[in-house]
């Protein structure tokens, strides 16, 4: 996988440095208030600071020893800093990713075509930042493309490694679905004229940078709901701590401010509260590292909920393109003549299928006289292409029904044996290409698909995740069915026209499902916009990229599978850390509650099941554990909890066991160990 090239070490020293600095900047209460859980910890920290200072100047020891209060203050401060550090580190990593992309597009010279001229030679070199939407520029071999745009003239090989990390050059040409170029990539050969499609600062990359820098990061719906739940937990513990004061008064037990605040900070879900935004940022960052630019965090999250996945057959399920494998002439037609006709009709056909026909025929184009021939291009409407030769021959090749249509319209019959070959080819997963000459059938060409190795396993994995896969193909239903079965997809749309995709998506959405699709062409734009998750290929048209909510820089159609996993991972990481955080409270109660009351109610010593050294050491141990668990979980928060497609119930059982039961047990051990250490000094 290409993303390895861009992986950053988890605790890269430079990033850690920036993050530490940021941790202090983020102490600003106006920034903290966005995170209610950590904000209350900050308030607790300030109170402890005031208590310590008051004691320092007055020498009033009614609130416990000075060293003890100052220690609590520092541990609380560390707790807040750790949480800030987690967020800052996630941001710094995201920024570093974005920065490496941004470097590629710092002011490069652009050969801007002077307004009002249409040629490719009248240009002036300007800074790329001066290019505006709608301007044209040209690029020659060795040039860095200055801005996102669409090729309007020419064809070129382009090195996109700066963005995708993939060193093999790609071909981009005007018209069609591979006309888009990205700023920062390098032209290797040929000359192209490009129309600028974005304003400076609004390209996908710029948007992405803004997102990871946090400026425009919006909380996702699940994140909001979780924040509410965590705020409610925090409020419950405020109630617990506030009411404890009169309870203690009733029981004649003095409780120090330090003990109150320690109890409160330990109980509120600081672990998840401190890591929550880091998890969200890391999710976007993981998407970026998979070479996917998500337009919002919500899109990544939605990807985890996807029920239906629409995949184009070509390139996703099958390797590249179909190849001609056989010629079947109709009865009474000479095989050589048939092959010649096939070749003639394919000479101007630059589709991979057309080329493969010429290849299979082994013909040399020079031997054919095509002067004055008129080539007819394939269109989605006629679903056939061909050639009108100067000698009056009209050769057509195309889908079975479209050629049949032509033939029968002219009053000719469709030969039985050809119809049978068509059927035989289709049911074998091949694509029949029927060839006619002057509205008479010549025969059939068999095209075969090659299914990508390993694709079945991927679909099986998706099925276990609960995602239904749908193959979209222009093939006839028989062929489509054969390939669908062989590849293991759940459903297929055969003879698909662009609106079929759209209708399918609508239908699924009406029944309440979330649909994802991948597309590149302008044709796909409406469907990409309609889908809940629309992933546009970076090579696709500007319209497609605008319509989707993610862009895949690798142009890899199977990328959706990774995106779904990233989305799920994001939710799982939040869920499991919440569970862990709350389960921790059980042990903390057993540490702190006996410590609070032991002086006046010796009987509660029986609750001190950990056998902690002293009330002070017990409280310190709990607060220290509470603080250090945050940095210890940063790697998990940033990497994400692994997703295993083993079914929802099994997954819940697994995570409940690891993070729920584990969350109950770990702090018992941790607090006891810290207490033993503290016992050595106290």
């Amino acid at each position, binding site marked *: 996988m290409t993303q390895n090239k861009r992986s950053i070490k988890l605790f890269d020293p430079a990033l850690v440095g920036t993050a530490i600095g940021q941790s202090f900047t983020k102490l600003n209460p106006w920034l903290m208030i966005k995170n209610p859980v950590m904000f209350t910890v900050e308030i607790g920290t300030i109170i402890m600071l005031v208590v310590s200072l008051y004691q320092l100047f007055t020498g009033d020891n009614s609130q416990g020893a000075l060293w003890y209060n100052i220690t609590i203050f520092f541990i609380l401060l560390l707790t807040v800093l750790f949480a800030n550090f987690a967020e800052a580190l996630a941001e710094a990593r995201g920024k570093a990713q974005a920065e490496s992309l941004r470097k590629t597009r710092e002011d490069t010279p652009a050969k801007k075509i002077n307004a009002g001229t249409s040629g490719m030679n009248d240009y002036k070199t300007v800074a790329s930042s001066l290019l505006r939407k709608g301007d044209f520029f040209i690029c020659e071999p060795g040039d860095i493309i200055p801005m996102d745009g669409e090729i309007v003239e020419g064809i070129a090989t382009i090195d996109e490694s700066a963005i995708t990390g993939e060193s093999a050059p790609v071909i981009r040409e005007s018209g069609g679905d591979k006309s888009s170029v990205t700023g920062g990539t390098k032209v290797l050969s040929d000359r192209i004229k490009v129309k600028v499609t974005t304003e400076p600062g609004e390209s996908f990359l710029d948007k992405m940078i803004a997102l990871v820098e946090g400026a425009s990061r919006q909380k996702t*719906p*699940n994140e*909001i*709901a*979780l924040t*509410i*739940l965590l*705020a*409610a937990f925090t*409020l*419950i513990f405020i*109630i*617990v701590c*506030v*009411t404890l*004061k*009169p*309870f*203690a*008064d*009733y*029981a004649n037990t003095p409780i120090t401010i330090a003990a109150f605040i320690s109890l409160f900070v330990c109980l509120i879900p600081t672990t998840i509260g401190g890591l929550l935004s880091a998890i969200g940022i890391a999710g976007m960052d993981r998407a970026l590292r998979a070479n996917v630019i998500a337009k919002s965090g919500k899109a990544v*999250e939605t990807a*985890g*909920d996807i029920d239906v996945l629409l995949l184009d057959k070509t390139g996703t399920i099958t390797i590249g393109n179909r190849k001609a494998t056989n010629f079947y002439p109709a009865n009474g037609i000479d095989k050589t003549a048939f092959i010649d006709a096939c070749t003639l009709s394919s000479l101007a056909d630059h589709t991979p299928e057309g080329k493969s026909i010429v290849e299979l025929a082994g013909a040399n184009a020079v031997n054919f006289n095509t002067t004055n021939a008129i080539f007819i291009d394939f269109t989605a409407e006629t679903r056939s292409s061909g050639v009108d030769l100067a000698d009056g021959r009209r050769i057509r090749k195309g889908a079975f029904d479209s050629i049949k249509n032509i033939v029968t319209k002219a009053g000719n019959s469709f030969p039985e044996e050809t119809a049978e070959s068509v059927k035989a080819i289709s049911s074998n997963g091949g694509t029949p290409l029927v060839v006619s000459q002057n509205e008479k059938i010549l025969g059939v060409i068999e095209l075969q698909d090659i299914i990508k190795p390993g694709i079945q396993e991927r679909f099986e994995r998706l*099925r*276990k*995740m*609960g*995602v239904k896969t749908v193959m979209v193909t222009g093939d006839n239903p028989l062929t489509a069915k054969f390939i669908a079965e062989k590849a293991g997809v759940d459903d297929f749309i055969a003879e698909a026209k662009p609106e079929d995709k759209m209708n399918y998506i609508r239908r699924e959405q009406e029944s*309440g499902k979330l649909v994802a699709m991948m597309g590149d062409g302008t044709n796909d734009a409406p469907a990409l916009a309609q889908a809940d998750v629309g992933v546009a290929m970076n090579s696709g048209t500007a319209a497609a990229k605008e319509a989707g909510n993610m862009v895949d820089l690798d142009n890899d159609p199977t990328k959706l599978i990774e995106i779904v996993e990233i989305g*799920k*991972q*994001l*939710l*799982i990481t939040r*869920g*499991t850390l*919440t*569970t862990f955080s*709350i*389960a921790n*409270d*059980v042990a903390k*109660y057993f540490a702190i509650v006996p410590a609070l*009351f032991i002086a006046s*109610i010796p*009987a*509660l010593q029986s*609750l001190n099941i950990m056998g902690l050294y002293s009330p002070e050491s017990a409280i310190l141990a709990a607060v220290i554990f509470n603080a250090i668990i945050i940095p210890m979980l940063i790697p998990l928060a940033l990497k994400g909890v692994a*997703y295993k497609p083993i*079914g*929802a*119930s099994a*997954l*819940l*059982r697994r*995570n*409940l066991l690891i993070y*729920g039961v584990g969350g109950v047990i770990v702090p018992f051990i941790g607090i006891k160990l810290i207490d033993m250490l503290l016992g050595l000094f106290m």
Partner: protein
Amino acid sequence: MNSEILGTILIFLATLLLAYPLGKYIAKVFEGEKNITNFLNPVERFFFRICGINPNESMNWKQFLKAMLTINMLWLVYAFFALIFQDKLPLNPDGNPGQTPDLAFNTAISFLVNCNLQHYSGESGLTYFTQLFVITFLQFVSAATGIAMLVGLLNAFKEKTTQNLGNFWNYFVKSITRILLPLSIVVAIILAFNGTPTSFDGKDTIITLQGDTVQVARGPAAGMIAIKQLGTNGGGWFGVNSSHPLENPNYITNAVETISILLIPIALVFALGFYLNKRKLAKVIFGVMTFLFVIFCAINIYYETKGNPAIDKLGIAQTAGSMEGKEVRLGAAATALWSVATTSTSNGSVNGMHDSLTPLSGGVVLLDMMINALYGGVGVGILNYFIFIIIAVFISGLMVGRTPEFMGHKVEAREVKIAALITLLSAFLIKGFTALAAYMVAHHPDIAWQVKPGAWLNNPSYHGFSEMLYEFTSANANNGSGFEGLGDNNVFWNVTTGIVLLMGRFLPIIAPIAIAGILAKKKFIPESPGTLRTDSGTFGVMTLAVILILTALSYLPALALGPIAEFFSL
């Protein structure tokens, strides 16, 4: 001793055997399917006609709640004034006085909200008129309100996407005519034949063996006691509730009354399965509730039959178990079962004094009321459980990597917010008011109130703390049992518990109905292999964990200062 424990097991098994068919029947009643009480159709039609109600009119969740709240307010006003002026009303053979306004406020609310916290004693605090037309009346309608709200909640999940929760009036009337009345008649007859009074005569006078002259209160009690048990009301005819020999004469009536406590709450869980056609879901809910219920019973039976360790230390044998505050004719085990049953279901009737339970049993009944969803009050128990489900669904949905959904509807920020607020509410009410009471006792014991805070508590220290905690926990859970030993008939307790009662009743009804209404409006998402099934054992364990952890986290410090401290001190 063994036969006592066997007795409790048999009572519980008999309850389950009766609850299952009853659940099936209840589902049929509300689905409008043919059933054995269809002969009552004309009666109901008559009621609807004179009230101008169209029982088929559909209501959305807001209309549904509005109907419920309006009629409840009306009852509250009526009950309040009837109690104040009861001395001027008929059927008062013993010449009992009218209630003070603060006591009437507390009593009216208490019975309206199905709680039946009694700060008075039935023999002297009420007349036969108010016993029948205020107390018994409210015991029927408050239970029927609970059942009707549950049916509304279920309707939200019966259709894929709907705004219609059904008709409140229809469910309300049918809850009374088809469920509460018939069952009450059966139970009342059994009680009457076993010696519970059913007479309009005033007090009787007897001369005891010692030669003292004793006044014995009587009244038309059997019918009221039946609905008190069946409707998870709990407010007894006599002050000491079902430990009174006329309210609960013998082991048979005790068994019948125990079954009556649990019968409808358990049957409603089964009814949920039949009504929604989701029996597996009902089984999982029943499993979680029963699991905790049985554990609680086991703890209480163990500690009550074992006896009080302080008495053991004196070298006195306690072969019958801890008998302080218990009835010899019933035994320690039967009281232990009753104590858990009555606190699980928000019933609140007692057949022994909870004040005298051994510390850990006292802790269990407190915890039971703090959870308040193990079967729970009629109808509202499942509403409470629903809130736990929503929180469990949310956390576990995240844990499996999917936006959480329940019954095909996405659970989002708004629903989580409402559920979180309700979780918060009980912690706030119970702990907040207990803290207020503790503060008054600690800092202003001699303030010039009618009853000084210093004189509230009959017991010092931890037990006194438990008494206050119990009172507010019971009020919030709409349970109604008291730890007693608390001077609670005064302005402070009447008003504070009154407020807690109202909030602890209506907010936890409004919230689940609102959540259900909002969810039901959302697009229905068909189940896929990635959907987390809420009718699986795993999810049951998850809900159990949420219930235990939420309750433990909210209340552990309070429990530590009360029953736990007492337990370790003995």
